[in-house]
């Protein structure tokens, strides 16, 4: 701190400022602004410090503007301006006297460059300013920000504010900050009390503070206390770590299930080896992209509408494939495999020619970004939570269709005994087309979900085709439950192994496991039973 001020003073004395000076009448503010406009990031940082300490009523707003890039700089005449949005356009408004500088242009009004170190510095300064914000949520955020970057001067500030604080959540966070400061107290007694206060906090800063005590504290009793508190905390951290792995596995599994469940119908129920399944997923993802292009500005709604749209597009293409190619090849699996592989190449090239050979950007709606912070060691990302729920929903829907509708009844009848079903008056050709369309449509829906997680490009489908077959074969051909359990099982196995085996090896191990498993149980986890299954 002192070093920065000294260097700043030296710099101010020795180098003439490159930028024109802004006259405000306030000596301190003048220097602060001049420093902010300097090229050297250390000088800028000193300017930020000075601005925050100036007590200027606009200081907080200025710092936030600097952070968000809304504070801009005009060279001739030297002015600081706000970039403000008004009636559809962007305008430049003077920071000091509010005069209008006309329409905003990024070339004329230059950004004040800041770097990562300055961003962290501004956030920490803002946290101090915001500690007395009327909104408790803002106060809690700023106390938490202090926990992340603990500084010795925070404790005094918090102690003075603690008396006034009413909100219990904020008080609790403040106590942790104070106890953390207590870890470095000179009297062993106070250190031990602080350790007792902190023994059920999961904050990383607490763990680091305790580790330091365990290793360096001169007092043996304090060391023992810290070690036992640390052990207690570590135990909980490990437990939450397992929960996190489970969640990661379930979410990876839900992607697998979504990708595979359409295949479970076309391959599992109908017995068609459809190599173009991945491309049907890709078509669903591209439908999402096109819907977003059609409805600019309404990302959330366009995603919801993409679900039925993608179903229709992929189902349509699926029915066309079945009527045009596959129906001539029933009972000839090798030919089907080659023909559908050709179709997959055609579909890929079609997208390359019609849309773009490059990946297309699909935006995420706000409700799909961010995370749910359960505590400081366990947090779940919203997009994964939604996809998990979505996967269960699709599964339930499909299960209902197959179990309780007329179509489902006929599908099951045809798949169990085609000749008998036809003898009973089921039009098996039509059922085949509809079944294939249903499976393809589900693949399209999977595409919508995948567009939120991964790159949308012509090769999207190829990344999932092998995984999909793997899940269906592992789970048991012709059984939806098998696909669900198989998908989740493989997802969890993958995520459990990934931390110690690495992503590449984990994948290989899973494949080896499946090969061995299939040797033992050729019909998968849940084989179909009964006479129909033998044929």
């Amino acid at each position, binding site marked *: 701190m002192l070093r920065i001020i000294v260097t700043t003073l030296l710099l101010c004395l020795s180098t003439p400022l490159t930028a024109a000076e802004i006259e405000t009448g306030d000596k301190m503010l003048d220097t602060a602004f001049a420093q902010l406009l300097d090229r050297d990031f250390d000088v800028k940082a000193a300017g930020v410090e000075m601005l925050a300490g100036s007590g200027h009523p606009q200081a907080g707003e200025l710092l936030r503007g600097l952070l968000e890039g809304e504070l801009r700089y005009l060279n001739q005449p030297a002015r600081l301006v706000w970039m403000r949005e008004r009636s559809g356009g962007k305008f430049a408004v003077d920071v000091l006297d509010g005069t209008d500088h006309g329409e905003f242009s*990024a070339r004329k009004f230059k950004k004040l460059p800041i*770097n*990562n170190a300055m*961003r962290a510095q501004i956030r920490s300064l803002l946290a101090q300013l915001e500690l007395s914000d009327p909104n408790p949520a803002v106060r809690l955020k700023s106390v938490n920000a202090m926990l992340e970057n603990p500084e010795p001067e925070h404790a005094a500030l918090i102690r003075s504010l603690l008396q006034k604080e009413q909100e219990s959540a904020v008080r609790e966070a403040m106590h942790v900050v104070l106890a953390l400061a207590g870890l470095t107290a000179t009297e062993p007694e106070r250190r031990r009390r602080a350790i007792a206060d902190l023994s059920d906090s999961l904050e990383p800063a607490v763990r680091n503070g305790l580790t330091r005590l365990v290793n360096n504290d001169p007092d043996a009793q304090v060391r023992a206390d810290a070690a036992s508190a640390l052990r207690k905390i570590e135990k909980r951290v490990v437990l939450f770590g397992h929960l996190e792995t489970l969640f990661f596995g379930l979410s990876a599994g839900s992607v697998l299930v979504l990708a595979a469940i359409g295949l479970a119908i076309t391959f599992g129920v109908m017995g068609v080896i459809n190599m173009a399944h991945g491309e049907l997923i890709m078509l669903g993802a591209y439908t999402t992209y096109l819907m977003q292009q059609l409805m600019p500005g309404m990302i959330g709604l366009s995603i919801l509408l993409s679900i039925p749209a993608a179903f229709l597009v992929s189902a349509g293409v699926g029915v066309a494939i079945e009527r045009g190619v596959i129906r001539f090849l029933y009972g000839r699996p090798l030919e089907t495999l080659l023909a559908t592989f050709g179709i997959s190449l055609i579909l890929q090239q079609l997208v390359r020619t019609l849309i773009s*050979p*490059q990946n297309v950007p699909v935006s995420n709606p706000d409700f799909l970004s961010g995370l749910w912070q359960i505590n400081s060691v366990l947090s779940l990302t919203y997009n994964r939570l939604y996809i998990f729920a979505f996967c269960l929903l699709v599964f339930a829907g499909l299960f209902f269709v197959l179990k309780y509708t007329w179509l489902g009844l006929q599908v099951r009848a045809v798949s169990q005994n085609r000749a008998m079903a036809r003898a009973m008056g089921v039009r098996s050709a039509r059922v085949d087309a509809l079944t294939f369309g249903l499976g393809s449509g589900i693949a399209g829906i999977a595409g919508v979900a995948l567009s939120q997680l*991964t790159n949308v490009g012509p090769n999207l489908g190829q990344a999932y085709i092998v995984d999909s077959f793997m899940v269906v074969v592992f789970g048991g051909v012709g059984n939806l439950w098998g696909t669900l359990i198989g998908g989740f099982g493989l997802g969890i196995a993958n995520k459990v192994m990934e931390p110690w085996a690495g992503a590449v090896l984990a994948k290989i191990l899973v494949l080896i496991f499946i090969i061995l498993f299939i040797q033992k149980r050729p019909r998968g986890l849940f084989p179909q039973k009964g006479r129909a299954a033998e044929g």
Partner: protein
Amino acid sequence: MHFASKLRRLSLAVCTVTALGLAGAVQAADTIKVGVLHSLSGTMAISETTLKDTMLMLIEEQNKKGGLLGKKLEAVVVDPASNWPLFAEKARELIEKEKVDAVFGCWTSVSRKSVLPVFEELNSLLFYPVQYEGEESSKNVFYTGAAPNQQAIPAVDYLMAQGVQRWVLAGTDYVYPRTTNKILEAYLKAKGVAESDIMINYTPFGHSDWQSIVADIKKFGSAGKKSAVVSTINGDANVPFYKELGNQGISAESIPVVAFSVGEEELSGIDTKPLVGHLAAWNYFMSVENDANDAFIDAWHKFIKSEARVTNDPMEAHYIGFNMWVEAVKKAGTTDPSAVGEALIGVAVPNLSGGLSAMMPNHHITKPVLIGEIQDDGQFQIVSQTPGLVVGDAWSDYLEGSKDIIADWRAPLSCGNFNVKTAKCSGQNY
């Protein structure tokens, strides 16, 4: 709209190529042929097509200035289709059938390794414009991209100066990240970083499920020491990686990511708001402020007929490489590859960041190293720049088995793999 403009651009490109081809047929005798060996289809087309266009632009501009040695230049464009063996075939076609005097091309290291024997056998010149892992110096190749000491090491130095003490080296599983990370690990250890403060992680190409890796990075970074990620993650796996970082709430202030394969081209088309503050190390950024760069950007926009297109580091490398070749041809007074190859050493031409880049005896060039932070408009803001130019080092000083090796293609040494300890030149040229 997108599609229409694509189609227009495509038809334009086809016209240009045909026109050039026709023109070439008419005046074949008095032109100098320049080969362009970049994939125009397949997985690498995304990056390499831009470089083909850059070469066409540079050649067009040189012709406007009156050509070279009183002759016009003529571009011969071939498409190796992201297919490594095809690169070698196409290179042979360019040199033997088309009789080009120099070739500008390749992106991936494996494509360069594939054409190397062809260039050495037929004694022609290749200008390679992409940052790479080093450990190579061929008589016939001129490396205008960065060697590891011109990109990776200065980036690590910058982060160290910012107080970073724990390091995650994350990369895609192939030769460039593996070699670079080996060098970086040796460098970090030489700087006194403990083994337990380095975490190395490799993922397959196109990896998309980053949850547990990002969670691991988060845990690794919460041990009370400032941490950073050094990323050699390649290609489109970067998009879900950065998305996951944003979703798990890791900001550039807590754990910055410095990337060596993410530039303006890769950022165009993705939402960069969550990425603000993450870093990249290159030798050129589009946001460099000086007249040469402004002129280059204007010329590029005019040539490609779109104001939205960005410029990037490998484009600058071709700019430097092409101008070096032009100067060397002038110096030698001939386009004969052997004479030009010798004349190239010591040639210095302006780069786009306001300095002079020179070709060194080891066939690498001098370049400034810039560190930039990603901005919300997809551009980089330069936060650090080496005071002078850095000489590209073909053989890393931090790897066992490579630190005693130097490359010097001047007579009398004339060796790309000379061991100073045993004073022997390995017969292998690269």
